[in-house]
């Protein structure tokens, strides 16, 4: 008890910058994660704007090919490791203790540390833009031997990835420790909100896959500087082995990026349909099944490296099999809406757009999984369209949905609904103008990662760029909505949304510094349908 009091005292003491540097409070750290992620979203986004600007017309107008390659590489690294992953950790920090009826995360000091690694890691990574030889330009997948041609930036890239990995693992450990030790009495595992469930599974994926990445990049480092030849055929190594190791991390990674999104959408749709989530337990099992399958499909990212027939068949079958549990989830969301009583506030709009557009990304994903046809699709804009549908209109749209959904809880104010809807419609229309034509570009033969293209690809590239500029500009509106909401607005009730259920809505808006200093009344834990 006295320790808790001392802790409160400490929180009250620090102000200004020191408060944020030394904070061990899950909400403060969650806020830091989210603001950091938003910053990175704009830095990575501006790189995407450079890419779309160069591709607006055939010919090289603005940047040189090497810098263009740096842009695609850095855009991917920043968006994956800087924008989406920290955003999910931010949501986890804010929401998991509140959702399970705990006062804070289990390991608050580790929590502080895992956040504060990030800004340094990204300073290191971004500083490479100003180094001789330029920023890494071998693609975020870092395939050797190409990546070994990176200049002075190389060790910075490797160590930035080590830092990011350490931060992610610490965050994952914290989530697991919190959920397994700090649930309120009555909060059984099968009563956990789905966001918590998807995050536990994500945390296990992180712990299992990040060390694999760390190993792979360390081998790159020793290959470059210490004379090893893990990935050099001339020295008895194998460049394809890197791809196997990388994608053994990389495929679970894509589910790390998307599983929490499933959790958020599973919270939002029932709320605004005013109807319990359909098939709660099948949602949990489907998430588990997807996580398991994610470890045995990795080679579908590299069908063209020349695998034996048996390998190609195995990875094709396992890959298309993922459609079954993913389909179950989509059907469950539609069934949740069915015979509901729906309203369409901004979070619901984003969640509905998520269901449709993520499913389109799933369709192209299944097509890509069909090995013989992938020999055509592989490394074209069809792939680019696919993963942007699942990552932008999938993960990022879910992040937007979640932000609008919980923003009133976090700030105590309602956001401006009109602006929110503008943000939604502008984003949804422009993101489709941006990415849909890329399917056509890929099918008609445009490879990815090229700064200039044959003239038959001009029209769709121009359309895509226009969509890109509008999408990019629309996100400024998002910042406006968030800032306005933090600074003031209509007072939010505890309940916020009419159909909302779960422990977070029993707390005041904004919640007190320590969420549940006393365990919530077990009868208030309904669970099982969110």
């Amino acid at each position: 008890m006295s320790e808790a009091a001392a802790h409160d005292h400490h929180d009250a003491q620090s102000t200004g910058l020191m408060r944020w540097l030394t904070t061990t409070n899950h909400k403060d750290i969650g806020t830091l994660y989210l603001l950091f992620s938003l910053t990175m979203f704009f830095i990575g986004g501006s790189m995407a704007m450079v890419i779309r600007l160069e591709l607006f017309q055939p010919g090289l107008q603005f940047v040189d090919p090497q810098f263009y390659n740096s842009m695609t590489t850095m855009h991917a690294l920043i968006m994956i490791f800087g924008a989406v992953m920290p955003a999910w950790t931010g949501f986890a920090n804010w929401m998991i203790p509140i959702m399970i009826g705990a006062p804070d995360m289990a390991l608050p000091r580790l929590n502080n540390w895992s956040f504060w690694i990030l800004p340094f890691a990204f300073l290191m990574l971004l500083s490479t833009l100003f180094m001789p030889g330029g920023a890494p330009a071998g693609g975020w997948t870092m395939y050797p031997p190409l990546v070994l041609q990176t200049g002075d930036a190389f060790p910075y890239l490797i160590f930035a990835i080590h830092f990011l990995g350490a931060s992610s693992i610490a965050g994952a450990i914290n989530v697991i420790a919190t959920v397994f030790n700090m649930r309120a009495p009555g909060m059984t595992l099968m009563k956990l909100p789905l966001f918590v469930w998807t995050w536990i599974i994500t945390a296990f994926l992180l712990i299992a896959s990040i060390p694999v990445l760390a190993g792979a990049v360390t081998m790159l480092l020793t290959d470059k500087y210490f004379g090893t030849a893990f990935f050099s055929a001339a020295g008895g190594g194998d460049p394809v082995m890197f791809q196997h190791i990388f994608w053994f991390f990389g495929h679970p990674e894509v589910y790390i990026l998307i599983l929490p999104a499933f959790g958020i959408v599973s919270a939002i749709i029932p709320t605004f349909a005013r109807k319990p989530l359909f098939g709660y337990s099948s949602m949990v099992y489907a998430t588990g099944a997807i996580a398991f399958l994610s470890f045995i499909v990795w080679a579908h990212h590299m069908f063209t490296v020349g695998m034996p027939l048996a390998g190609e068949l195995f990875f094709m079958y396992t890959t298309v099999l993922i459609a079954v549990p993913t389909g179950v989830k989509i059907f469950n969301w539609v069934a949740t809406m069915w015979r509901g009583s729906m309203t369409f506030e901004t979070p619901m709009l984003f969640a509905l757009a998520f269901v449709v557009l993520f499913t389109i990304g799933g369709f192209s994903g299944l097509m890509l999984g069909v090995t013989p046809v992938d020999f055509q699709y592989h490394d074209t804009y069809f792939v680019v369209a696919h993963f942007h549908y699942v990552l932008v209109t999938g993960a990022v749209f879910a992040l937007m949905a979640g932000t609008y959904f919980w923003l009133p809880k976090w700030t105590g104010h309602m956001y401006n609904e009109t602006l929110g809807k503008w943000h939604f419609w502008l984003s949804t229309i422009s993101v489709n103008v941006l990415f849909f034509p890329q399917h056509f570009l890929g099918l008609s033969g445009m490879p990815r990662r090229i700064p200039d293209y044959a003239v038959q690809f001009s029209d769709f590239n121009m359309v895509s760029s226009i969509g890109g500029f509008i999408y990019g500009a629309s996100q400024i509106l998002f910042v406006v909505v968030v800032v306005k909401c933090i600074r003031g607005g209509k007072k939010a009730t505890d309940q916020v949304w009419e159909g909302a259920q779960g422990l977070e809505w029993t707390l005041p808006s904004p919640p007190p510094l320590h969420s549940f200093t006393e365990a919530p009344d077990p009868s208030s834990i309904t669970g099982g349908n969110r």
Partner: protein
Amino acid sequence: MNFLKKYASYAFLSFSVFPLSVFADWGLNLPRGVTPFSQEIYDLHMYVLWIMCAIGVVVFGAMFYSILVHRKSRGAKAANWHHSTQVEIVWTVIPFVILIAVAVPATRSLIMMEDVGDADMTIKVTGYQWKWHYDYIGTEVDFFSTIEEKSNSARRRGSNIDPFEVEHYLRDVDNYVVVPTNKKIRFLTTAGDVIHAWWVPALGWKRDAIPGFINESWAFIKEPGVYRGQCAELCGKDHGFMPIVVRAVPEGEYIAWVEQQSQARALASEQKNSRNILARTRTDQ
């Protein structure tokens, strides 16, 4: 105004998946290609695409019906059910059956693609930063193939050359890969520095060219013609500027070409030899 109209129609197109086959010539879809394999996977692609469209119609149809009808503003009252084991089993089994219907023809095509035996001839393709080298195994013919000079100067920043004015901009090379039609050609792909990927869409596949490893693929080109492609695996600064051009000709013409190449090569090496001899005599003096 025409400009606007054109782009308006494209914007419309980009939202509608269905006219894909109708507008196949507009650069919207996979090419049918000119090999049995490319045509088979084109059909497979369309087959899977139509299945996806059908699923989309059902799922999104149900969803949009629900969005339109089951809304609070229309006075819809929420039901309270939240699971049904039967329904859940049904929608686990149906996708599974659909996947089997996809996997069977896909397996057949894949087995066909991986059968590289009984080839009539072999071409070894080696990727370098940033050009291709072709070696016609068993003949005297081997050469480098790099981007054609007009494209190469036009693509430089500040060249002030309009790409639309350059014929086959970024898709033309100095030396074409000449191959015979109606022969099973085995391609061996490898690389000398970093990983590249050799891709001509009309042949229906791409294959990575990996230093230290040799990959096998094959093509059986039915129609004479010129087929263009380019490197498909990021290989550094000029990855976008290493095109591939395959020219398929009837067998007789191909044999004549090989002979002509061999003679030219013999002549060149003779000249080189005589130059060397000259040079040596000069140093001897």
